[in-house]
């Protein structure tokens, strides 16, 4: 079973990401058995059927507007955001909006071109599971989750910026000088 990072640990995971061919009409897409993450368009088209199926999650691309999904968010066990290329940063804003604007509290997974050095940023905007690209060392990825002991600005993980969280030094208050 493939491994992912969830809650700061490497765990086995059986969610399958369904990426139907673009030319297949949504009504005809075959849904495999087991836990499946379907694209947003498919969910919106067949939500009643998929909802009754139970173990279904939804993935969004960077260009998807998460707003139409909002009414189902409380029922979804998994939402994923796809990174077609690691340099395509739209998914960070999509994730941030899902969490902070639309109140999604379930598992939020980064899928696609997910590389170890992106995990720090991803975790901050609200991802809590990471399908690290299979050719990359997942243990290395786990180690690079938290390269910094503090951060300046707020995001989903902690909306409060450093200057509100703890007292920062005024001139003359520096240790050693």
């Amino acid at each position, binding site marked *: 079973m493939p491994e992912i990072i969830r809650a700061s640990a490497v765990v086995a995971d059986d969610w399958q990401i369904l990426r139907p061919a673009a030319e297949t009409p949504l009504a005809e897409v075959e849904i495999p058995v087991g836990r499946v993450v379907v694209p947003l368009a498919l969910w919106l088209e067949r939500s009643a059927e998929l909802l009754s199926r139970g173990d279904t999650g939804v993935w969004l691309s960077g260009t998807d507007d998460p707003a139409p999904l909002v009414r189902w968010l409380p029922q979804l066990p998994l939402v994923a955001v796809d990174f077609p290329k690691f340099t395509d940063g739209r998914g960070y804003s999509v994730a941030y909006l899902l969490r902070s604007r639309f109140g999604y509290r379930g598992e939020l997974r980064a899928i696609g071109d997910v590389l170890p050095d992106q995990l720090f940023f991803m975790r*901050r905007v609200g991802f809590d599971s990471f399908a690290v690209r299979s050719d990359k060392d997942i243990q290395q990825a786990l180690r690079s989750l938290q390269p910094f002991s503090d951060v300046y600005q707020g995001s989903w993980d902690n909306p409060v910026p450093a200057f509100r969280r703890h007292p*920062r030094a005024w001139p003359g208050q520096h240790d050693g000088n």
Partner: protein
Amino acid sequence: MYVYDQVDRNLVAERVAQYRDQVRRFLAGDLTEDEFRPLRLQNGLYIQKYAPMLRVAIPYGLLSAVQLRMLAAIARRYDRGYGHFSTRQNIQYNWPRLEDSPDILADLASVEMHAIQTSGNCVRNITSDEFAGVAPDEIVDPRPLCEVLRQWSTFHPEFSFLPRKFKIAINGSVEDRSATAFHDIGLYLCRAPDGELGLRVLVGGGMGRTPIVGTVIREFLPWQHMMTYVECILRVYNRYGRRDNIYKARIKILVKALGAEEFARQVEEEWALAKDGPGTLTEEELKRVSAYFTAPDYEPRPADEGEFERRIAESRGFARWAGRAMRPHRVPGYRAVVLSLKKTGVAPGDATAEQMEQVADWSERYGFGEIRVSHEQNLILPDVRAGDLFTLWEQARKAGLATPNLGLLTDIIACPGGDFCSLANAKSIPIAEAIQRRFDDLDYLHDIGELNLNISGCMNSCGHHHAGHIGILGVDKDGEEWYQVSIGGADGSAAGHGRSAIGRVIGPSFKAEDMADVVSRLVEIYLENRETGEHFVDTVERLGIAPFKAGVYGTPVRTKKEPSEGVVADA
């Protein structure tokens, strides 16, 4: 100036450790070139023509003597004994080794400096007015908000993989000395009638392939909302900016496509939900950061002005230099002094390690240990007593830093160009030198007056050619280096009477060897036509480009030397 506390120190130290590990993984083959590229770029490391290039941030152009000495030491230890000050208040080293780059970053961290986000598709070094805090026309000192925004943008998790690079400038004076309108976001500090501090917000300015002067999307944004508002601009850009074409990926293209009004509407809609959130700046934090930028203990000496006047009367050379290099200071008895990095024969913006050390020494001897870097690629001593100016001049002259050309035609802004940069279509440095040699007569140069001549080796416009009163752009035609000339650009400064404008191309491009002649002709047409008090750019504004075009193209440029090689038209 700002001093790192434990939070800042930890972040920079941890960044060095993270980068060191990334370099190790790259050298071990665990990271491909494509995967490593954005990581090294966000630490300032480019791969250039002959070697890597390391770009180090000088946040809002402010340096201490200790920091400048470290920049000199790095030039010696890891490079070839010099550095290049760029138009974005950065310094670039042209010859470091990739393997050494983590050590260089560690050395920088030891003096509270870094190369974080000096490249890559992220928020770059925040730039500002090099005379901040000392300029008499200052409305509000921009440095505290620059520092606040520097911290906010550092490792911003949502905006580290934007469609393209993102540049922000903050200007706090009446005169715009930061080319603010040419930034992705330009912020002008201002005060409401009731005295409240705020910002006028411009978006979508930029140079490059599609030069655009930014558009105001908000006339007055109270100061505490700076970060939440900038966050919303960036979110709209991150989500909707184009990613399919690198040449259309800057925010200016999105603003243009949507229309500034619609873009502003989307930002305001987003901001309605983010406003007053925890990202709102507090009075306490603004006070804390501002406390690092209080005025030093000025002690004007009454005899200084008399001494200065006497020296001016005695020495024509000193008077000429002071007339150009000196800038007014808000404290009587003091001046800000610009040290020219535009000596003929030296690449514009280059300084040797020795020069950097000398400037650091002078900053302590004749000031409060502070140095500024301008987007015009010169160094500034912000607090020199009038009575010390003569001695400083004598020393600066010996060090090759007292060319009396500030703001004049030979104070050329130029990118490193084809001599170093792998993006360049053509060389910049030899063109700058040819022009400087042509205008080596100081009387003539001073008679021509204020004239910004800017050279870029390619469309990326690092040499700000679009904003030059005369702009020169290197172009590639069938593998040969050619130069396109534009006139009438203006960067928003007093030299162009506050206008921000894109220069207009006068016609077909020229060969390198014709460039000095072309500039000579443009200047002659100006001198023949100028009215009293007009700068070159004013005459262009009044007459349009037609007479300049006629004067330049009327007869082949090189008739005197090689009649067979006239002006060749673009296809």
